């Protein structure tokens, strides 16, 4: 049976048969099943509760084999490079990593990786795949609900088209987990979706089990340009808009926390916008804030103190190097491009050493793509950033740089206990590179997701092709 057929079979299982095991691990929604006092029992969709998960993941890992990759240079993102090392994959997990782990007798697949590199799967926390799918056209423009400055009520997953041909291309670039965000037209753009980069018929089957939602917010030029005619039209208008929303959300959270504690009387009216923001105030949803300028990031940090929430990550953060000390002190993840800038005034001060300078100051630095082409070459982007940092006199090594595309973005999603590094017990999201991943000439050769080989450069016929590509694209990812 071909891998593709197996993959499709697994998808069917996930959708119709199997109870998704992973959902057991999710925090249960404390639905008001046993009201403490008499009164109306609202349907579950009528109440606003923490950790509610009405569109749960149906992902089930694809079939995997006991696999040993040996004689590889291993960048673990958890310690020093292992030369001539091995990685053992069993039951979809990393069973062992090291220089001397032996060769178990029950192996199905042994890969000799002499001259090759092994890294964790890449994690991209800023993508619009599925929401701005290819081909790009009006019918596919599903990434910006630019109808109100605050659309915390929208969920990116409700726009994701699983047949976006950009997904298999991201996988071929070694990306195994990504966060799809709403665009930056709005001050508060909506919920993110954290997805596994796997073939699926539904977005639910791509959703990373148990991953927290993110809330996309945006600083600066984009929202003020989009709403110039009806406001906000200035940076001070932006700030006033966020603050008004947080004030409202705080009241909403207070009313619902009280009702959830007592279940007395009618529940307060449910409001999707406020619900998402209340979850951000509770810390259940991570705030991901698009912000370019140093001075604006500093304002947003003050605002987070004003309302008692945390900014989990600043995105784009063109000027992060100017306040790297502050970002380190606040424990905020910073996610950046290697060298894109200049396209608007707030992007003018982009420098290639940004990631290195932020890392050197002690903040968690990560690469991101925000681009369907760039997502295929995040290893190259990290290469650019690493050598730029060296040229700026920073003592960056490959062991540090590998974190910028693996464990640090995994931390930004709250998934660093499951993915992002090569350590025993973690999910076997693994990339085998045909050379140094920070060379312009290197390709991802094999990509494993939960131990399943889902991309193989040497076996193009088996690789994932989306429905759209059939009959239209005759040159899909191939050697």
């Amino acid at each position, binding site marked *: 049976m071909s891998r593709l057929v197996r993959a499709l079979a697994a998808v069917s299982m996930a959708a119709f048969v199997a109870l998704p095991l992973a959902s057991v691990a999710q925090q249960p929604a404390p639905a008001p099943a046993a009201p403490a006092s008499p009164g109306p029992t609202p349907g579950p969709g009528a109440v606003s509760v923490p950790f509610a998960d009405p569109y749960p993941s149906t992902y089930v890992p694809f079939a995997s084999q006991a696999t040993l990759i040996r004689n590889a240079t291993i960048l673990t993102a958890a310690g020093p490079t292992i030369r001539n090392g091995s990685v053992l994959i069993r039951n979809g997990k990393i069973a062992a990593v090291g220089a001397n782990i032996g060769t178990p007798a029950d192996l199905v697949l042994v890969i000799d990786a002499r001259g090759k590199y092994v890294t964790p799967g890449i994690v991209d926390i800023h993508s619009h795949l599925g929401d701005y799918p290819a081909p790009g056209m009006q019918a596919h423009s599903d990434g910006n609900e630019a109808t109100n400055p605050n659309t915390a009520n929208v969920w990116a997953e409700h726009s994701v088209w699983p047949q976006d041909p950009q997904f298999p291309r991201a996988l071929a670039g070694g990306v195994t987990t990504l966060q799809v965000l709403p665009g930056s037209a709005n001050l508060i753009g909506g919920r993110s979706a954290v997805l596994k980069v796997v073939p699926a018929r539904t977005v639910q089957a791509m959703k990373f089990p148990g991953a927290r939602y993110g809330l996309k917010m945006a600083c600066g030029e984009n929202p003020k340009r989009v709403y110039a005619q009806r406001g906000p039209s200035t940076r001070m208008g932006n700030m006033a808009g966020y603050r008004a929303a947080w004030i409202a959300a705080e009241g909403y959270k207070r009313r619902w926390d009280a009702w959830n504690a007592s279940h007395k009387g009618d529940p307060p009216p449910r409001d999707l916008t406020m619900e998402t923001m209340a979850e951000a105030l509770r810390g259940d949803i991570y705030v991901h804030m698009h912000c370019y300028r140093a001075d604006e990031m500093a304002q947003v940090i003050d605002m987070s103190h004003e309302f008692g929430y945390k900014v989990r990550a600043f995105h784009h953060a063109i000027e992060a190097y100017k306040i790297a000390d502050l970002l380190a002190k606040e424990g905020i993840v910073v996610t950046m491009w290697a*060298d894109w800038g200049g396209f608007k005034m707030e992007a003018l001060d982009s420098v290639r050493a940004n990631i290195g300078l932020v890392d050197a100051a002690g903040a968690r630095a990560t690469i991101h*793509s925000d681009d369907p082409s760039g997502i295929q070459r995040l290893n190259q982007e990290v290469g650019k950033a690493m050598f730029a940092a060296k040229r700026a006199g920073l003592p960056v090594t490959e062991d540090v740089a590998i974190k910028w595309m693996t464990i640090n973005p995994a931390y930004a999603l709250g998934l660093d206990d499951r993915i992002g590094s090569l350590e025993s017990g973690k999910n076997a999201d693994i990339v085998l590179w045909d050379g140094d991943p920070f060379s312009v000439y290197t390709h991802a050769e094999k990509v494993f997701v939960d131990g399943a080989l889902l991309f193989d450069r040497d076996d193009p016929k088996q690789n994932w092709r989306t429905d759209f590509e059939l009959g239209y694209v005759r040159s899909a990812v191939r050697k």
Partner: protein
Amino acid sequence: MNVRVVILAALAAVLGAAAAAGAETIAITGATVYPVSGPKIPNGTVVIRDGRIIAVGANVAIPAGARRIDARGKIVTPGFINAQTQLGLVEVGGERSTRNSSGRGLVNADFRPWEGFFSGSAYIASAREDGVTTVGIFPTGGLVAGQAAAMDLADGTAAEMVRKAPVGVVATIQTGPRFTSDVDENTAGDANTANGGELSAPPASRADALAALRELLADARFYATRHDKYDAGALRGLIASARALDALLPVVQGREPLIVEANRVDDIDAMVRFARAERIRLVIAGGAEAWKIAPRIAAAHVAVLTGAMNNIPETFDRLNQRQENAAILRRAGVEVALVGNEGGGADEETFNVRNVKYEAGNAVAYGMSHDDALRAVTLAPATILGIADRVGSLAPGKDANVVVWSGDPFEFSTSVEHVFVRGREYRDRSRQDQLIERYRKLPRTNN
């Protein structure tokens, strides 16, 4: 001192400075030299004097008094050329006031964007310090965007930076939003030219665009011999302004290429046939699906400007876009210049004109030989832009646009160690370098 004396003194100072810079004799020794026009030279020497290359080879006598640059273990190449950019035409893409790449109409064959080039662009130094010494600048918008030019990244005013202008007339066969952002694609064709008269709306379809191009060339020929009648008001309506038709004359006479943006294989094929029928020189820009008819493009001696970093079926014109495109074309014998085609911050954008070297690296990763990739960012673009007699290769008599690299020019680990434009070494730091220097050590105080 009267005004004339002041001007003469200033002129003398400028010329003196230029002469001093150019008069220096420099010998780059011990490097692996890639002349591109010939095989690589291990342990080679390049001698520069008066702005020109005077010697290239393994056994070259070094002139007395020459400044020597010991380049053992280094690589020397011609300065890189990014043939299709907006450098100096668009400084901050999001700010209209900094955009100077478009003419005002649909047929802007007479639009000369280099006259509005911004010599103060921050990205001249950043491109140069990454090894780019010449760029092609392309107008945008309309059916015929205007004339392209080649600019050297040397100090000077816009006019002084011109390497050659024009180098061709830029048009598109694509329809819809590729025209100017000010034109609503839904109105395309509603008010198209009818029974003579100027084109007043974008073509409604690709065949309509092809028809309009055909009519443009016909009217350019027609008008060329009837200026008197036109001046007397006795000529039928023309599809474009007299100025635009005049500007198309070098194209219909085969003196300059028509550079046409086309991506779908059918559009590329249609343009190749069109060029043969019209007896014009053609360059294809974009060329996403060109690989499908690579031998035919080679046989027609049509050059292609394309990239190696896009495999996304972005539109129905580019469904079969792939990263191997440039390599397949080159293997078939097509003259290929590598330019940015990635979108989202790649080297087609002003900020990253410098990254054309990584386009070349990716071309190698997707099947092009290293030698061909080097040619595709030096001699090939020079040939396509019509400046190969002066730049794009290392040979005695050529202008000294030369780069010394610490290693493989296409690798992220490599740095540019010396860069010469017209024989002058540039050591200035880009705006970005200055920002890094300012913030490399953060202030101790909290302000």
